[in-house]
């Protein structure tokens, strides 16, 4: 008749304890010939080595996509991916896009209405009609 145990599972919260960057891989596609890739080729030559060295958590794969616009595809830990077409962009503009992909969580974009989202229960507690002095009607 002693107390029995139920089975539960812990829930992880990224950033509490350890933080894992959610972008795990970035595919960078370019074309040698097409004019829309000119900025991308400059980005790969001049900016990408420094950016990749500063972000070792991300696996960078650079590969050609002949006769197509240049694309950056971010792959995320939750299994989703985000692709951004960077045609006709300057290298620094591409850097902005790549940083955006790096900082994204991989979740679908949605509007956040609440200032705080938490798995912890409220410190103050939920208001109860059965406690306190009651309401004067």
């Amino acid at each position, binding site marked *: *008749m*002693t*107390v*029995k*145990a*139920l*089975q*539960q*599972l*812990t*829930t*992880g*919260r*990224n950033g*509490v*304890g*350890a933080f*894992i*960057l*959610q972008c*795990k*891989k970035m595919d960078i596609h370019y074309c*040698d*010939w097409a004019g829309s890739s000119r900025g991308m080729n400059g980005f790969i030559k001049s900016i*990408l*080595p420094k950016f*990749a*060295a500063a972000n*070792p*958590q*991300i*696996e*960078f*794969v*650079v*590969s*050609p996509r*002949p006769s197509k616009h240049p694309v950056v595809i971010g792959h995320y*830990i939750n299994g989703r991916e985000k692709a951004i077409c960077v045609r006709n962009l300057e290298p620094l503009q591409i850097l902005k896009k790549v940083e955006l992909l790096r900082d994204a969580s991989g979740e679908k974009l949605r509007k956040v209405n609440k200032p705080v989202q938490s*798995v*912890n229960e409220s410190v103050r507690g939920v208001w109860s*009609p*059965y*406690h306190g002095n009651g309401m004067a009607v």
Partner: protein
Amino acid sequence: MPKTARPKTAVLAFQLAGCEYQPPAGDQTWTGQLLAARPGAPPASAGALRPRCVASRPRQLCLSARRQQPQQQQSAQETDADTFDVLQDGTDHARYPPLERLPASVAGYPSPLPERALKSAKLAALHARLSLPSKIPLQTLARALVDGSADENPQFNNSNLAFVGHTLITYHVAEWLMCHYPRLPMSIVFSAVQAYAGDKALHQVARSWGVETAAAPGGEVDPGLLQFSLDKPTTTVLKFGYKRTEAAYLEKFKWRRGISSRVVFDDDFGGVVKSAEPEEEQEDDDLEEAEEGLSPSYTSYGTDKTRQIAEKVHANFARATIGAVYAHCGREAAKAFINAHIMSRTLDLSNLFAFKHPTRELALLCAREDFDHPVARLLSETGRMSRTPVFVVGIYSGTDKLGEGAGPSLDLARFKAAMNSLKAWYLYSPGGNVRVPSDMLVEDAKPWEPAHIDIGEIISR
């Protein structure tokens, strides 16, 4: 159309900077020599850790068989004739050269050669993502990714590392629970340890690290992928525990296992240690059914069985990573890693309790602790004659209110109140800053202040 230049498809070499191999300092546990001689291990585990059929498989004779590969590999690369091409599907290799030229011999190995770890971008990224110290070589992380079902040689799979990791995780979780919640009943402790360190939780941890799996194990796969085989799950026992002599009858006759005997005999989660050899016939049936798509549980994510195997393999990878941190960086680093990745997860312990006779148990508790006999009093109510009444009942011992509960009937509210009072007792915590025994292992630690030790849970009839 203008001539296009030879495409530049490459893994960027600077991603691997700073991750060169550094030999482990001190006790080289990761070679498995010390663990193979573990005292008190169950016979099945000892068998799995011992290199099998050494004479018949010369490559298992020592580590050097595969460790000496670099020279051979280079010579093989020079003679281009016997190079093993990964892509044999009519691709124009002049225009699209394969990323990595592999010698033909790699196909003969069950897992990638250790030195290939230095060239894997996935592995280097995983190493950086986990913020592992540079003391941990990429080769060890690569070894942590090889499950026993992919490579049964314990010198190349993660079974030894996972055993160390499992022991460390359960130790730290258990000591934290015991010091922070000294009154937890043992069954709840088992359940809580499983919630933190069980296969399901560690599977989620490994998934949250972004580790990808290889479609099938082999010598040619990227060392940065988790390698395991669904066809022949590993039989290596990674948990400590004794096989009960009456194990076969426990399920058949539903024999009772007392908590004390669970502490002595069973594994860290209070579960029976099953025999290491799986029932092969039934498994084959399941897999065949899965392949034909006959099994109702078959989905694009596999069957229940394959998911279970994958879950276990992921958990063992997480354990092996912690074992690797311990082997190369020591106790403190391993503890910090466990705190960061496992202890930081949330668990509401009050959800673990299931009471059968809460009022009786509470009465016994009060009798044991010399409190006044508990009395239930109705605090407030609404809608007694309606379809949805609510009663709020408090349980008092003398003038002290032990707990309170609300319910749709008087009895239910009383039971709820009793449960809440018992939880309040069991979940007593001396505070968040309690020290655990492993804090004393640091140099210049302050003298130990005795932890709160409870006389034990309420034993009722």
